[in-house]
């Protein structure tokens, strides 16, 4: 980070000015805390792509929404699809120009800035690459503050911004433009994404800065950089947890040893048919130690302590290895891991009735209330 710099524990620091290739290690580390344990192993190909674009085009200005004129046109950039196709075929690097170019052609106007669909996981990095490739500033905001599975599970949609027109580009160079209602967009897009190999870079939610001020979660990218700064520089567990508490409001729900990792799959003899782990059970140390159960559907969604809901989506749940001080992903969690279970509160917009209806525990099929609902069903 140039201009202002980001100290490891400087949550009060001034907003970042630019993002350069040298900031990527912090971005990679930081985005893992907010990705709800999915993809925490990282996607090297994404980093290679974004780093190359930053080195070729130079650092990306990171600006606040308030610094943009009301009529500045922005669009959200993010990847839609699965991790596996992304692992198998990293981006070529021109998908951002293809997708944004198609969107600009559809709406008849050039973008003034790029915003993030969701600044977590690989989608924390793609908007940086897009801004670099397009020579545009990146606005320090996003529409999720975490990873959610559907493209209309955003604060943008909560505020009434339409997802479409939407343009997507695959690594093969396929380009599509969608015009439809927000609820149908995800279903239609998934079909195209599957047909194109399972992954597309998309530009969506075209909106002016004025409208985004009512819809976006501000400070998302700089938050990741600060978290990444902590994760890559702080060596003590206490200092790290204190820093995360101050920086993103992270709270330790419990700590314990993983005693069970269960999937929804079946086992027949030596054959095993797991999905990603769907339940992780931890035991606190000591005879009176509580039992913590984490429920997942691709991402961690629910934390139960001795049977009671302690935290739930859309708040972010994650596991932090107490010894290595690294985020533990669902792909790598093992029985015996000694972890802290952290909850990072979601943006206030997500805690409204509409927000919880769109991305609360019941939206994922859990018949429980979010803790903020105070027992309201």
């Amino acid at each position, binding site marked *: 980070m140039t201009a202002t710099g980001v100290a490891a524990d400087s949550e009060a620091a001034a907003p970042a000015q630019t993002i350069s290739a040298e900031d990527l290690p912090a971005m990679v580390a930081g985005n893992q805390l907010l990705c709800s344990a999915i993809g925490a192993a990282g996607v090297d190909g994404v980093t290679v792509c974004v780093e190359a674009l930053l080195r070729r085009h130079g650092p990306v200005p990171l600006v606040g929404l308030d610094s943009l004129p009301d009529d500045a046109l922005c669009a959200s950039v993010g990847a839609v699809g699965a991790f596996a196709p992304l692992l198998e075929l990293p981006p070529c690097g021109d998908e951002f120009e293809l997708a944004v170019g198609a969107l600009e052609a559809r709406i008849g106007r050039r973008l003034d800035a790029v915003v993030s669909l969701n600044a977590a996981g690989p989608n924390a990095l793609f908007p940086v690459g897009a801004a670099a490739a397009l020579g545009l500033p990146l606005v320090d905001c996003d529409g999720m503050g975490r990873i959610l599975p559907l493209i209309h599970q955003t604060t943008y949609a909560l505020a009434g911004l339409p997802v479409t027109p939407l343009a997507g580009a695959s690594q093969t160079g396929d380009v599509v433009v969608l015009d439809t209602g927000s609820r149908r967009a995800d279903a239609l897009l998934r079909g195209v994404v599957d047909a194109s190999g*399972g992954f597309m870079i998309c530009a969506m939610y075209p909106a002016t800065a004025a409208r985004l001020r009512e819809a976006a979660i501000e400070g998302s990218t700089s938050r990741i950089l600060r978290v990444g700064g902590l994760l890559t520089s702080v060596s003590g567990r206490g200092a790290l947890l204190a820093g995360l508490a101050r920086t993103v409001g992270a709270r330790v729900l419990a700590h314990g040893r993983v005693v069970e990792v269960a999937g929804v799959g079946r086992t027949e003899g030596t054959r095993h048919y797991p999905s990603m782990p769907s339940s992780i059970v931890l035991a606190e140390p000591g005879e009176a130690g509580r039992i913590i159960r984490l429920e997942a559907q691709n991402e961690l969604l629910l934390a139960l302590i001795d049977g009671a809901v302690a935290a739930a989506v859309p708040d972010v749940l994650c596991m932090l290895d107490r010894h290595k001080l690294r985020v533990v992903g669902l792909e790598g969690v093992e029985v015996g891991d000694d972890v802290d279970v952290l909850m990072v509160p979601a943006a206030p917009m997500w805690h409204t009735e509409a927000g919880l209806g769109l991305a609360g525990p019941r939206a994922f099929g859990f018949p429980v209330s979010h803790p903020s609902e105070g027992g309201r069903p």
Partner: protein
Amino acid sequence: MRIGIRTSASTAHGVLMDGGAVVSAATAPLDGSAPGALTALTTGLAAAASPEVDSVTWDVSSVLEEALERASEGRAPSSLVGPGGLSLVWPGSPVVAQHVAAVRVVPRSPAAPGLGAHPSSLVRSLVSWRGTVTGGHDLFGNELAALDLDAALRCAEQAALAGLTTLAITATGACNRAIHEESVAAWLLERIPRLRLCLSHESGGLGLLEREATTVVNAALLDVAENVVAECEQATSALGDGVSCWFATGDGGRVSAKRLRWFPVVGLAATAASALIGAATLSGSRDAVVGLTGPAMITVGQVRGGLPHVEADLPRRIGVRMTTPQPVLTFSAVDPASPTAHPLNEHSGPTVDVVAVLDEGGREVADQLRRHVHPGPTWLRSPADIAAVGAAHTEASAWLDLLIPAETTDELDRLQARAEQQALTLVASNGARPGTERVVKSSAAAVGYLRASLYRLQVRATGLPDDGPAR
């Protein structure tokens, strides 16, 4: 009886085993001061064997890793044969991995320089020339772009002009459909027969970069493996024609000399895998968490059913993520100034069932820990090198890692059964006694966030060894 030998650039530790018991152990320097040191080691150990030695299994992973490290430091590759036909290399001199050319088969070329780079500095240092050929498939097996064979030939010709005739070829989607890699290989070998080609689908696994790293490292180790295997075979043959020669692998199995010559990457990480097996063997535990001590580090891994717990795609000690399996390990530094705060403490780190010494200097660490760790695990105190013990006890093995689309459970069952049969066949070809092959793991994990049904199949199989004549 069996012999296990763990080698590095400078030392070889050997052990003669009779079942689970150590009969004798010995160490030989390999610094060139004693020509024929390997043969002296095998014959010395075999002298105590009664009945005769059935097999010698070599753990050469340190030699391979050191060759890669030297290459990454920019040292020139070793010449296998010096003036007058004298061997210039291991044992006696350090070996260095070869530089290779890398060719990716993908739908489009990177949009800018640097976008096609590999994130691993080791891989970048091994690849002296890189090219792109249009082609590839998606994970469902659909062709993403028509294969450009002429471009493949141009790549090979340009690499040859740069003095590179060993090519690592990685096609996107080859974990499901390998036809583009196979077509490129057939096309090139027909036109430039002197080429050596390593194809990424031979290692399998998910991830273009991970598979490319595996293929590049494998290609870079071909000459080193040729040298090392030949030396090991020679030292084994000194025991007689009936003694078979094997090589320990990172998944806790073993392969023939022929297999290691062509697929040396499987020999990496064999020391940790063998050490876990050795600890299980000497402790009599088929299921255990094992702590392995070194001078400044404790390595913790698991043995399940007598085999090390392994996974693919793990970051390597040599700084690269590869698709070939290796033990799942936790590393903890030992602080000599604060022995009570050590990583095996019941309340601060993983509990272990068995502790064994892995490296020189580890014995002092183990003794120090023994005074402070409660409750106490089983402490192994053997004069034999624990990895050499494990190498002697390795079994023939196979690991398959495939991506398959399957619309119905019947189709998935059929494809999984085919993969299991393929793994069993590999085990047999890796030297298992007929009829002893068995599948120990067969998982079909659905790939998330995709509408179509796509599964990642991982099959691990082993078999009891057939210590017959060397293959």
